[in-house]
């Protein structure tokens, strides 16, 4: 399982949160809802909801835990650069300002 952001779920939660708030909602709740809706929109646009797990991630994790990638070298570099690329794709959904 590599669920990351479920845009539909975030929208439902945002609506439920607003429904429980008085009118107008508290600043705290309004900020939470606005943030949630923005992330949900970006998640949908990026078709990110299904996650981004690679097919051989379990084997990669087993290798990392076994120490097979401890030493500097091309395998470690490849694993690091792939991890960085994935994290940046997720950041584009959650907080694109961090990419600038």
């Amino acid at each position, binding site marked *: 399982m590599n669920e990351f952001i479920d845009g539909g779920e975030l929208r439902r939660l945002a609506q439920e949160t607003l429904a429980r708030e008085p009118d107008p909602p508290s600043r705290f709740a309004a900020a*939470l809802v606005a943030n949630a809706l923005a992330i949900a929109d970006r998640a949908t646009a990026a078709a990110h909801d299904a996650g981004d797990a690679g097919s051989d991630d379990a084997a990669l994790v087993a290798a990392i835990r076994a120490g097979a990638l401890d030493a500097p070298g091309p395998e470690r570099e490849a694993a690091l650069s792939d*991890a960085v690329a994935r994290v940046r794709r997720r950041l584009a959904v959650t907080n694109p300002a961090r990419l600038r």
Partner: protein
Amino acid sequence: MERLAASIAAATGARDVRVERFERLAGGAIQENYALDVRIDGRQEALVLRKDAPSRIAGSCTRGEEFALLRAAFAAGVRVPEPLWLGADPAFADGQFFVMRRCGGTAIGRRVVRDAALGGDRATLAARLAEQLARIHTIRPPRADLAFLEPAPGARGFLRDAYAFLDATGRVEPALELGLRWLDVNAPSLQETVLLHHDFRTGNYLVDERGITAILDWEFAGWGDPHEDIGWFCAWCWRFGADDLEAGGIGTRSDFYGAYERASGRRVDDERVRYWETFAHARWGVIARRQAERHRSGAQRSLELALIATLEPELDDMLLRRIA
């Protein structure tokens, strides 16, 4: 409110208790805090009641344990809300709650780092925080009143729990795993054991125009290397955007280290602090995942908890930068 008034009367021996305000305070994703204004035998008291949230996360102690930690800190002279009494009235709350005196000021991290009027001079605020941390670190094992704390689990204790959590929830996350492995390979030996607050950071202390009014949120406290608390305080993830001020977004690292060394008599090992800063991003990343899991599992449906999951990529990003 009648049950609460009765509980307070039983704890204090008061004859007349009137609850005049009982209102949920913002923040506190793990526990719930309530402003509590009461009149006890005619005396007005401004208090806070802290109780368990509907679900909890691993590593977070019970309210009874947190009450004992708060008492130990108060007795050691740490600036904390005075702990008053521990309650366990099943008709009022599912589980324990405790009551402490209410302190003024704000804890909102972004506001603390941006509003220079809070805490006065920034270098002084950083120094006062370092002195508070040094005072916390005067509490050492063994302590009968803190016997519930696990002997210093250190980085490897965290790693053991993190792997168990990842495996139990089926999370396959190479970025985080690369960070966890680096922490395992580079874990420092434990040289000294003190009480760690374990969440000593901007956002967890109250400050007003005159300075610090209270160090809050003791639920993660435990034994360990004092450098771990310094690393947590200095970690990028707790600077709230004030990245140049490496000590909690409010001071320089040298201001903080210098004041800590003077107050504690202990030399700060910068290399050790940097290890614990890397550790901080992994630890907060795992806590964020645990928080999100409380929502995903259905234990506590919450937008706030669901949004904590969105912090994972920036924590992983910083973790990877630090180990690359």
